[in-house]
């Protein structure tokens, strides 16, 4: 492997890891945070007839998960292009 290629691969992997970290932080915040551990503090906020924690535990987290996976796929595919690593 040439040196520039190795450098490029390292940068690509670092960018991927950063993106995974961001994705998983949001993943944990909506499900374990809003939906579970922070629920007692969010009781005052309502989404329709549900309190925010309840809504995130039974509805909101799932919508967020879907968005997160598409966001990750879109960003990674762009990253592939930027680094010239498309199949």
């Amino acid at each position, binding site marked *: 492997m040439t040196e520039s290629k190795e450098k490029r691969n390292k940068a690509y992997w670092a960018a991927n890891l950063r993106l995974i970290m961001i994705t998983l932080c949001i993943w944990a915040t909506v*499900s374990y945070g809003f939906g579970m551990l922070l629920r007692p503090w969010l009781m005052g906020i309502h989404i*329709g007839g549900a309190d925010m924690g309840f809504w995130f535990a039974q509805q909101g987290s799932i919508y967020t998960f879907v968005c997160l996976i598409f966001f990750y796929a879109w960003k990674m595919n762009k990253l592939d292009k930027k680094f010239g690593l498309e199949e």
Partner: protein
Amino acid sequence: MSQFMINMLFVAGSFAIYTWIAIWARAKSTREFYIAGGEVHPVLNGMATAADWLSAASFISVAGLISVGYVNSSFILGWTGGYVLLATLLAPYLRRFGKYTVPDFVGSRYDSKTARLVAVVCLIMISLTYVIGQMTGAGVAFARFLEVSSTAGLIISAVVVFFYAVLGGMKGVTYTQVAQYVVLILAFTIPAIYLSLQMTGHFLPQVGFVGDFADSGQPLLHKLNDVVRDLGFQDYTADVENKWNMFLFTLTLMVGTAGLPHVIIRFFTVPKIADARWSAGWALVFIALFYTTAPPLAGMARLNLLESIYPGESTQEAMVYDDRPEWFLKWETTGLLTFEDKNNDGRIQYYNDKNATYVDTTAAERGWAGNELTINNDILVLALPEIGNMPGWIVGLMAAGGIAAALSTASGLLLAISSAVSHDLIKNTLYPNISDKAEMLAARISMVGAILIATWLGINPPGFAAQTVALAFGMAASSIFPTLMMGIFFKRINAKGAVAGMSTGALFTICYIFMYLGWFFIPGTNTFPNTPEFWIFGISPLSIGCIGALINFIVAISVSYATEQPSEEIQKMVESVRYP
């Protein structure tokens, strides 16, 4: 036309479609048999993954399970959130690796036959325990809707699966799963929409759930809280005391989901890495359609059931037993509903008689002598069309949907088992020199064997069938997921580390489960009673998988750093998996 004929038509019609697909999608090479040629469109693979994932238990039991209220939210979060882990940590890289099975990756990455065999053992234990529930589920669906014995129903299902799975392998399984997804999602969402319109006036159950109850104008969830409180139950939206255990349980379900082999192999079937990423998103879209509908359905169906037992208000008199409606009669004969008139007033008092304060106050004042109605949770979905006075074709659709959910998951599991046997045991361990043609024959014979074993286990389910979910998710979380993830993200992990990690993680998890649920699930052999006071650090046996995963990580990393580096070649291979 009688209801029986309508149900027959729907089930036979769906079977005709599956059979037609089986003939159309015959596999001609091992590549087609194991990964459908690697040519499945990402959206179709997403649908097939959703059908693979949504099992008989999800279809029939999940709504009942979560109708207890907020306390059971873990199931909803756990069975969807795992896909984020799968999409970011496993699917694209395993697709890049480009082989056929999960143990195949483990064996090549760690360059070790032992690691491959340990992975095969874990995979078979996970998938076999999981498939028992699917086969019994198919039997139950048949028995409920088509009035045949569940054994006959089970054998009919096995024959249909045999047809498309043995002929078509992954290719046949994939395209039938797409059809099965369509059937099952229609069967699940149409009654939910119907119910939502009746109770809240909203077309989308997801909107109706946070909307107002049509009869009283107050928010549906408040109405639900009022009604269940009137009967001594815990509030529907009540918070959970032991958040620690809820956290661990959800994490175990999420990590376990990402580590289930029959789900992982679905991502081997798409053409490119970019497709694997998109496909995970589509899979979750189709799964989300189901899992965002389930909570509103659960809440509304529970309210609907309570309203029909207490036709006035929950504070007024209960239904008279002699005037019980037809659906009540029908489900009484199945034993899923049982009534015992404890205070001899001829009315059906249904309430929480385990709530001591309620029993001493309200129940005593009303002259109640104990809860008189035992309701199996599955009733909420199975009897939904009848309790809600829905048209006959909806019942027929639900029959086809329940069976589709069972068959699609069963076939995915059977494929994971048979490919691990033919590819990892026969081709890569015992007879490395067999031809492609011979391997395909081996794959087909393994599939026949797997179907026969699964059918036998379905007819004679071991007593522990109900506990298997704990075992399957605990095992997948503690053995498969960490080993795959470290294989991609930590170059330094070697074969010794992986084998030690997998074995200790899985053994620890199994032992903890056995300690509370009985050794080898034999009743009465448990070391401690399975109640919160006896759980170590408040961790229930269902939640232990993620601790097992942590142990796997720690052991694998420690052992790897204490022993030699993986070879240059292996390190290059890990590199290659990371870059498209």
